[in-house]
């Protein structure tokens, strides 16, 4: 029984979440922030991975990242809604809804056409956002400080509380996602990746699965954008720029599509490498980052997640 419990996704996640919450008390403040940001980026990466399972990569997740961020930001500044939990939730739902609207258009395309069309959406949004002076144009705008269930935490604890909220909400999302991946539509996505035609002959719809996956990816991206905006306290059109989208793609490639926690680890690794190379090599940090990206693609082509999978398979066989 205890062994079976260990193998249960639900209990694993609860354990991991509580571990992270406790660890957060002891690690320095800057690392708490870096992890929060890695969670935000990881959420978007998770969206791309959901698509990757169906054989698609989106180069334009900045689109949903930006929509999520601006949703949270505008609700905060225009409507005075500052509750972080609520903002994250609304951004998730709203961006998912936007995703659902454009998904039928995107779902008709595959491969590079899908990727480029998604990129086009994000750059159109970028172009629109830098032109709207009422919300700061290219400078963006500052978000009000967040509250949690009506309470405004003091400045020393604000970072930690946001961290806890993001760990818990992301934990819940991750659990649901794991169950989704192992459900019928989740598994059909894998089949679509292998052979779309055969899936259609077997009576399932690749189109429907892609629409569903894109909607989920959009919701996750929106939540990530909202979290990033709330953590930074500032939002600008850079959220939707293609370089931002590129980072998400890299995170997903580094993580691979086999494991959910691997995505967050990949995002954290990228953040740390970037931050330390920027600190110690201010003139050549891009070079260091580039070498890191190349090495990881050469040596771990199927992503960090493949280690996890190997590890679990070994444990199971023993």
């Amino acid at each position, binding site marked *: 029984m205890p062994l079976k419990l260990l193998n249960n996704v639900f209990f694993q996640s609860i354990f991991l979440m509580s571990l992270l919450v406790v660890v957060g008390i002891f690690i320095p403040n*800057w690392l708490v*922030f870096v992890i929060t940001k890695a969670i935000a980026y990881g959420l978007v990466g998770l969206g791309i991975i959901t698509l990757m399972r169906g054989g698609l990569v989106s180069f334009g997740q900045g689109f949903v990242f930006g929509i999520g961020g601006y949703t949270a930001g505008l609700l905060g500044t225009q409507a005075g809604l500052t509750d972080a939990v609520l903002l994250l939730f609304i951004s998730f739902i709203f961006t998912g809804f936007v995703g659902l609207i454009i998904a039928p258009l995107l779902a008709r395309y595959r491969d590079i056409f899908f990727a480029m069309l998604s990129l086009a959406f994000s750059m159109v949004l970028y172009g629109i956002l830098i032109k709207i002076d009422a919300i700061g*144009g290219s400078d*963006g705008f500052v978000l009000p*400080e967040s509250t949690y269930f009506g309470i405004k935490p003091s400045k020393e604890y604000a970072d930690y509380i946001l961290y806890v909220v993001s760990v818990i909400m992301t934990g819940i999302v991750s659990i649901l996602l794991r169950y989704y991946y192992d459900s019928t539509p989740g598994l059909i996505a894998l089949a679509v990746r292998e052979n779309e035609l055969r899936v259609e002959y077997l009576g399932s719809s690749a189109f429907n699965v892609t629409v569903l996956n894109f909607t989920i990816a959009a919701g996750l991206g929106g939540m990530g954008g909202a979290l990033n905006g709330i953590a930074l*306290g500032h939002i600008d059109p850079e959220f939707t720029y293609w370089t931002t989208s590129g980072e998400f793609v890299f995170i997903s490639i580094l993580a691979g599509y086999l494991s959910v926690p691997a995505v967050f680890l990949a995002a954290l690794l990228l953040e740390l490498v970037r931050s330390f190379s920027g*600190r110690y090599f201010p003139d050549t940090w891009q070079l260091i980052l580039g070498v890191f990206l190349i090495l990881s693609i050469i040596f771990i082509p199927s992503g960090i997640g493949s280690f996890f999978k190997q590890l679990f398979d070994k444990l199971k066989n023993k």
Partner: protein
Amino acid sequence: MKFFRHCLILASSILVSTMSFVGVTNADDHKGFKIGVVTFLSGPAAEPFGVPAWNGGKLLIKLLNEGKVPAPYNKKGFGGMEITAIPIDESGGATKQVQEFRNLVQRDKVDAVLGYVSSGDCMAIPAVADELQALTVLYDCGTPRVFEDASYKYVFRTAAHAAMDNIAIAKYLIEKGHDISSIAGINQNYAWGKDSWKDFSVSIKKLSPNSEIKNELFPKIFSGQYGTEISALLNSKAKVVHSSLWGGDLQSFILQAKPRGFFKRTQVVFSAGDQVMPGLGNKYPEGVILGARGQYGMMAPDTPLNNWFYKAYMDEYGVFPAQPPYRMVQGLMGLKMAIEKAMDKNGGKKPNKDEIAEAFTGLEFEAPGGLVQMKLGNGHQAIQPHAIGKTAKDKDGNIIVTDIVRYKASCVNPPNGIKAVDWINAGFPGADC
């Protein structure tokens, strides 16, 4: 292959953990005064702006630590404390900058952060700075919104915001009797370009209501190709063409417009036109009216402090300093004065951030570019005198700036409590010229 993979994972985890360790152990060495300096070290804004600014900063920090700067900056370092600077690259957008800022404050435990060229970064950083209660000096960025839309306790900007650049140019055109019956503009399509054009065109309209706006062009930032824009501007036959282009864009524009006789056929005004002068040298066109965002470079005042700085920079780097190094030096000098003022008050101890912030508020100090007064934003935003001039060739064929008109700070900057754009729209009430 598997072996390599494991090696890579192992190596990267060791790298990351040792680096975190290094970061943590370094943190508590607090003998001197540690500052983070954020400026563009890569990307399109590095060469014309970030790097020369940091060159000026590096030089001043070195000379301050050696005690070789003339009075009133002759105390070693900051009030006797040795200055250590950690340079950070500003490229990568506001998201990355907020994180780097946190790293500087929380991981490296710097005593102050000096930085930010991009207005987007200047909008994003102050809220975090106040949240972390970290002393922050914005040394360059132009947007007036920083202290007009909000107020901060620990954030200061030691340079005037962008409104004065365009107000002064409008005044200059009228005082010198230029024909401003029609104006046109080419400015980058982002906040800086759009604000600059708005400030300029509204100022002109206020001072000369009959002038007509011909063309408003907004090419995108870093586009580098201006062939069609130049044609459109030439066809519009506007008497005056205004531009706030800077850096590589300004350089490309000049090089593409000059062969077509653009600068002979219309009166061009550059609101931030001097920073490409060291690079272009004698290829810089004649007859251009330009500002340097302050009395900097060729328009700097003839004071002992400026003459010292101009020569020190020239000796070190072999080119004359344009606005970027002047502005960073201005920031460092302001910080130094605030720290030393706070030390006079607390009996010579290392002052804490609250003491420095209190001393900084409303501070006045002499910089190479003239007297800087922290007068706006309730003592957090500087105003400074300004100068506008016109390029010409001297008898040896070198490009110089002549016809310089100097403006008092209170003449081209709004009074405290009034937004720049409202002040322009109201026709500059209370301007003291």
